[in-house]
């Protein structure tokens, strides 16, 4: 038998607490005797009587706590003391499952809340601070907030890497972790595809297309748009690749991003060369790369990335191209007058705008966009639109002080109606996002704009074609089919992907760059 007797000076506990604790300890395996008491005269006597008293307990007073245990072995003894410590340290109050609202992270943690992920959407100048706290408390971070400085981002990501944690963001809109959609995400089939994405709607479109093609998602990690810049060094892209590569349920990796900056590009490729699993790399508007390892393929659009990933997941051949709707579109285009030569795209999703630009660049002339990095495509003045124009309405210049159009799509209506007044406009191209985070009924808002636009054009003796893509899965809470039906009700032409929507718009305008005439 082993004994351990501790005296804690000036540590008062009430006798009821101590009695119940003492009897619990006594019932533990391998414990033959346990006395947990304040050292009152009576208790000191008890301690002596059961052989757990000593000089120290005799010298102790009524404000001193005595912890005395007799057990069969060192293991049982330390188990008993561990239990005593736990019971004395924490009352049960904090462990109750309460749906409390807390003012700070510390308050929640002190109250016993356990979390492994912090989703942060506070104003940018405070966001890094919250993220740092979360990391220090061992949480992964999804940083939805923007306006976090590059220095802060780097510091956070370095800290995260050191601690073995993710920092998704800043300005990260979408992630799917263990089947749960965070912020702006779609309800997905579970599967074996793992994605690391540096863009929000881009990631969403890949998710949606994977789901539509019958594939499934294991994990989708966001990195935030600046991760592959030299100043950040692709820290989270690399951590994400390593994590997905190590993850058993992931069979196929997909990377979605703008092209990395030169200094980061080689690091990423060096890492990818060590990955044994098949990888689909979609660096939108990136240069084609030659001599790829056999397990790596490139995709130039989000749709292509999704199709290649699903083919790899299912072990089937990848086939190019999308369904042919030329007959239907040709018929529609008959309604347009010869001077209606242009498309106006108004996008809520920035990456969808960029992808449409890639598709239309090959098909239309006089193309401009506020997301383009090609000099000849740069849009001079968003208030004076000329030619074919694709606008990302989620850019700061339009959202200043207002909610993002994915949350509040009504800010798009006046753009649509204005475009309808321009006699040179024949086609309006729109995206509608559904899923977690998005508006309750975005199709209704878009439909309202479409109706007004069509009426406006009609009054001027023209017809107007509107092509819409609803980005969402049939499992999303807004109900994909109902959303599409609302839009179809206003005569919109519905596409199944963002790429298809852009292609349909080009076809309606007769594929100005050497395509078929209408």
């Amino acid at each position: 038998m082993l004994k351990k007797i501790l005296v804690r000076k000036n540590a008062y506990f009430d006798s009821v607490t101590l009695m119940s604790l003492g009897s619990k300890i006594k019932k533990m395996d391998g414990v033959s005797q346990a006395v947990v008491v304040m050292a009152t005269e009576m208790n000191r006597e008890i301690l002596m009587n059961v052989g757990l008293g000593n000089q120290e307990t005799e010298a102790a007073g009524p404000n001193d706590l005595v912890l005395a245990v007799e057990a069969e072995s060192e293991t049982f003894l330390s188990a008993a003391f561990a239990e005593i410590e736990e019971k004395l340290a924490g009352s049960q109050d904090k462990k109750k499952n309460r749906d409390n609202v807390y003012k700070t992270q510390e308050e929640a943690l002190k109250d016993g809340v356990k979390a492994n992920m912090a989703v942060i959407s506070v104003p940018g100048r405070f966001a890094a601070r919250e993220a740092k706290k979360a990391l220090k408390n061992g949480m992964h971070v999804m940083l939805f907030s923007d306006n976090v400085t590059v220095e802060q981002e780097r510091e956070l990501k370095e800290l995260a890497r050191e601690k073995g944690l993710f920092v998704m963001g800043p300005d990260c809109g979408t992630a799917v972790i263990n089947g749960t959609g965070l912020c702006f995400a779609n309800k997905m089939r579970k599967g074996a595809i793992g994605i690391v994405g540096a863009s929000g709607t881009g990631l969403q479109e890949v998710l949606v297309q994977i789901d539509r093609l019958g594939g499934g998602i294991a994990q989708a990690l966001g990195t935030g748009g600046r991760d592959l810049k030299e100043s950040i060094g692709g820290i989270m892209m690399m951590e994400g690749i390593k994590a997905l590569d190590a993850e058993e349920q992931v069979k196929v990796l997909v990377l979605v991003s703008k092209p990395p900056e030169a200094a980061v590009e080689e690091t990423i490729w060096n890492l990818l060369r060590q990955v044994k699993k098949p990888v689909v790399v979609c660096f939108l508007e990136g240069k084609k790369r030659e001599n790829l390892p056999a397990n790596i393929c490139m995709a130039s659009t989000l749709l292509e990335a999704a199709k290649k990933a699903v083919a790899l997941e299912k072990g089937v051949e990848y086939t190019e191209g999308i369904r042919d709707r030329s007959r239907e579109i040709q018929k529609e285009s008959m309604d347009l007058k010869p001077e209606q030569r242009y498309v106006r795209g108004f996008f809520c999703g920035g990456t969808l705008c960029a992808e449409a630009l890639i598709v239309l660049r090959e098909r239309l002339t006089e193309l401009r966009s506020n997301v383009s990095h090609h000099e000849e495509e740069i849009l001079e003045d968003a208030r004076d639109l000329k030619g074919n124009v694709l606008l990302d309405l989620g850019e700061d210049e339009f959202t200043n002080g207002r909610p993002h159009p994915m949350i509040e799509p009504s800010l798009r209506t006046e753009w649509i109606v204005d475009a309808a007044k321009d006699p040179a406009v024949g086609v309006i191209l729109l995206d509608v996002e559904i899923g977690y985070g998005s508006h309750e009924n975005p199709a209704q808002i878009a439909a309202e704009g479409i109706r007004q636009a069509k009426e406006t054009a009609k009054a001027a003796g023209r017809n107007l074609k509107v092509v819409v893509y609803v980005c969402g899965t049939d499992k999303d809470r807004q109900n994909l089919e109902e959303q599409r039906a609302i839009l179809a009700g206003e005569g919109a032409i519905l596409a199944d992907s963002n790429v298809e929507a852009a292609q349909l718009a080009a076809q309606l305008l007769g594929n100005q760059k050497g395509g078929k005439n209408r």
Partner: protein
Amino acid sequence: MKINDLFQQELTVLNIGAPNFKADLDLQGISAHQIQWMPPAEGDLELIEQLDAFCDREDIKEANQEAFSRILKGSPVLVGMERAIDVIPGMTKNTILHSGPPIGWDRMCDPVKGAVVGALIYEGRAENEEEARQLAASGEITFSPCHEHSAVGPMAGIISPSMPVHIVENKTYGNRAYCTVNEGLGKVLRFGAFDQSVIARLRWIETEFMPVMQKAIRIHGEIDLKVITAQAVQMGDECHNRNKAATCLFFRELVLSMLKTGFPGQQIEKAIDFIRGNDHYFLNLSMPACKSILDPANGIPNSTIVTAMARNGVDFGIQVSGLGKKWFTAPANYVQGLLFPGYDDQDANPDLGDSAITETTGIGGFAMGASPAITQFVGGTVEDAVNYTRSMYTITTGENSAYALPPMDFRGAATGIDLLKVLDSGTLPVINTGIAHRVAGIGQIGAGIVNPPRECFVKALKEYGKVRG
């Protein structure tokens, strides 16, 4: 890879910001807790920078742990009762101590002035109010905060040289703290009353009550105030506004010894009846007990723990361990609560008294969750009280298991207010307190909840940055 552990765990989320993200997680059946976020330090970026610089410093953490442990180890016992002039350090025949941070006669609020007048009449330094006011204004009298003389006083907190004071000793550290005898309710000096009945009671306390108490304490031996406080907290006191249980326990402890003092029967009877009839007798023991516990925690160079909060009816002042005895003051707030019938908001004096020493120690407003009876008195529900108590864990260093709160499953009282945590969280300490009429002598007109002005903490942090940055 540690990062992959996440993929094997159930996702549990802390949602900091937009609540709709939590709503979507709820839809997915994911456990998500909402942080109702507000800008830290009220969005003052300079202050936030300072907070961030300090929040990770090991030396500060260690210093705060030391201060916290000194508070926990404090062991206050009542050892005797003597005239202030005989025991209080720095007391002279021309000194009058008052509650709160330093204040001169000209700036004092009316209840404090009234109490000063009463004290000067009681001391025989003035015949009447007019003489007393002249003397007080003459510069002959030294006004000084109780806190600067190891003492504390409720409300006006006036201690004059002849007043008997309880002597409380912190057995662990050997320091002492002092507080007068609680006079009861109604017309009393601490609310600025100074008529004949008030003066007569003060004289009776000095000449008849004190001798009985002195001898009774000698017969009984020291009385452990921590044990009484701990038990009273279990019985529904928070030992600031509610001292019913504590007074009963104290009375039960001492009454036999009082009977054994051998003084004339009537004198003993009156002394016993005086304690028996005053629910707040123990307040004037609870306060010096807290003071004696906190004093050893002051003066730890890097500690950001608040060691005193006190009000003089004009200013609210705090002291911080690492900044020693320096006061950081701002205009005192008005107490929000219930007023007795016949009074309205215009009648109330701003926050007054040293009794916030109880909150500084982790009881009083901090322990309201364990004192359902007081919630009615200060206005509010039991749930409010529990929430007040819960929120205090955000701004404190640890829990004091000596004061275990039954309705909170015996969680220890939130103890060791940390300046940094107060500013970071924006949660101010909760004090529950009496409301004094702004005119001297009318007395208590209600009770309620009050916070210290945030400004006190901002000033203290700025100073801390200068001294320890």
